[in-house]
């Protein structure tokens, strides 16, 4: 609390000076007032041409004024945020009214001002540690991008076949949920999970073996470089011929893609133990196994997680691409390839969304697990 008060006196004294950030917000707003906000029925529409636009404008200005007189900077930021939401809602409202925004320079200038204001608010919010900084700020940032996408696509009437608006993708997600769930189960829960476990498990096991048998490491590492250069599109049809249409061929592609990253990372991790730590184990008359379990593996954890994280995205890409070359009539890759052919781009985008969310989910889950198990590592330490 005391910290908040001190920052406050500081900012209050600053606020008596000219706030150039606010000037930067005010200028495009004033410029926007001189421009039309769109066209309806072939006629240009001004700010005060009979729409609800002035209400949005006044509301946004009021929140800026309220934000600057708020008792703390953070409370001010929240107030200003509501003004930004209002500014973003204006083009959506106009679109619903049937206004053509592509001729409305006023709205776009107004949105530029809103973006600048969002910049200021995010700057203020990211000064606050904890959930505000780590979750809320990136969340607002992403939401801002999505809304900008929505407004631009709809405002300039981009054909949905080129780029659908996020709302349309969301609609497709809901509408095709059962199909997408089946695809998800086939691709992620069956192929990716099994292939990932097999590839990472084999990479890990062979690394342990290669650590014991040095020539194996010397022989395998150059092969790892070769394997990482193999194009998936080359290996996938071969695997489909070898292992058939079902998950086995997808798992095989994933094993080829994930085996070497895991091997290389595990080997690097195993050799990262310091001499002095190894000497310590030797002075305790600890054998190979004990040294491995008590020292080298825990020490290798950051490397292992590195491999696991890289592989989580590789596995998903591998499975989806492999499904292009033959699959039972289900799966995310199959869905994308067939719906593209049928010009059903909404479903394609919905599939892409599921894949992207799955990939970041896997990666994020592993990152959380990593944080929980390697909190001791210098890169993770929080005293």
């Amino acid at each position: 609390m005391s910290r908040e008060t001190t920052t406050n006196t500081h900012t209050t004294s600053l606020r008596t000076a000219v706030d150039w950030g606010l000037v930067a917000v005010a200028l495009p707003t004033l410029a926007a007032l001189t421009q039309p906000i769109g066209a309806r029925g072939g006629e240009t529409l001004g700010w005060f041409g009979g729409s609800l636009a002035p209400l949005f404008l006044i509301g946004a200005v009021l929140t800026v004024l309220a934000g600057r007189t708020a008792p703390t900077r953070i409370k001010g930021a929240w107030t200003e945020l509501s003004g930004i939401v209002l500014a973003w809602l204006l083009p959506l409202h106009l679109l619903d009214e049937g206004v053509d925004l592509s001729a409305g320079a006023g709205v776009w200038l107004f949105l530029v001002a809103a973006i600048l204001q969002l910049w200021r608010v995010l700057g203020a919010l990211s000064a606050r540690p904890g959930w505000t900084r780590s979750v809320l700020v990136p969340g607002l940032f992403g939401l801002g991008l999505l809304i900008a996408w929505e407004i631009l696509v709809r405002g300039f009437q981009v054909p949905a076949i080129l780029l659908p608006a996020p709302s349309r993708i969301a609609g497709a997600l809901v509408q095709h949920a059962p199909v997408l769930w089946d695809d998800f189960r086939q691709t992620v829960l069956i192929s990716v999970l099994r292939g990932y476990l097999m590839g990472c498990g084999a990479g890990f096991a062979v690394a342990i073996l290669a650590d014991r048998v040095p020539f194996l490491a010397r022989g395998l590492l150059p092969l790892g470089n070769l394997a990482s250069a193999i194009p998936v599109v080359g290996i996938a049809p071969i695997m489909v011929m070898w292992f058939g249409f079902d998950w086995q061929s997808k798992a095989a592609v994933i094993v080829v893609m994930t085996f070497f990253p895991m091997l290389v990372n595990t080997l690097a991790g195993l050799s990262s133990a310091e001499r002095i730590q190894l000497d310590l184990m030797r002075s305790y008359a600890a054998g190979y196994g004990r040294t491995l379990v008590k020292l080298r593996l825990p020490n290798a954890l950051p490397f292992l997680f590195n491999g696991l994280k890289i592989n989580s995205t590789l596995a998903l890409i591998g499975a989806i691409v492999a499904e292009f070359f033959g699959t039972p009539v289900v799966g995310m890759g199959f869905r994308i390839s067939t719906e593209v052919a049928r010009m059903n781009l909404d479903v394609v985008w919905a599939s892409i969304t599921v894949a992207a969310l799955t990939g970041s989910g896997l990666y994020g889950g592993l990152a959380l697990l990593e944080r929980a198990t390697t909190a001791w590592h210098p890169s993770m330490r929080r005293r």
Partner: protein
Amino acid sequence: MHSPSPSRTSGATGQPAPAPIVQARSLSLVYPTADNRPVTALSEVDLTIARGDFVSLIGPSGCGKTTLLRVIADLEQPTGGSITVEGLTPEQARLKRLYGYVFQAPALYPWRTVERNVMLPLEIMGIPRAERQARAREELQRVGLSGFERKFPWQLSGGMQQRASIARALALKPDLLLMDEPFGALDEITRDHLNLHLTQLWRSTGKTCVFVTHSIAEAVFLSTRIVVMSPRPGRILDVIDCDLPRERTLDIRESPEFAAIAHRVRDGLKEGHSYDD
């Protein structure tokens, strides 16, 4: 040239001398190098360390003092001569876990709490959990780290980390404690404090300590005997008895006796250097 007197067991006490804890006879260690100019790390080293002694190995960098300690610990293999530890080969002694080793750096595992670090050797020995914990607590208390059991090493200061590593070596309950410049990386104030602590610990436990250092004051303050070594090739120049009273405080460093011994050590070190100049 001094001829180092390897043993002081021939004292006029009349008592039969107890078996030495470490005995080296014309020990040598030559490292092969890539450019075919082998490095002689140890040359013809004769040394006897009696039970209960605090022996410091002192000398400039490269004189083989750390190598000698590592040979005792079976972390390096000599290329000539013989050495016994508790009457066994160093390897047998290591496998029987007869010594505790304190390294230059604390070498605590960052993923283990301080207590679990001290318990590590006991885990490897297969000692039951309850006893492990009791012994770890006891040793941490001995080095003044009670209350820090649940902390992680990186949450402790450098001096505290090195104390924890001493507790870890003590947890094995060895008769022989090998220490390789354990306080070398610490500031002088912390170092004084830990030296005082160490000398009290040595007096109260009756262990034999072999202590590598390059600080004359530290060697004289801690030791009952000081082994002066010289580089190229690594050899023993002199073994100086340090017959200050066993109970020592930091004030002893102001006494004329202390100054006299320090002077002898310095002379010995100078003699070694005249070779190079």
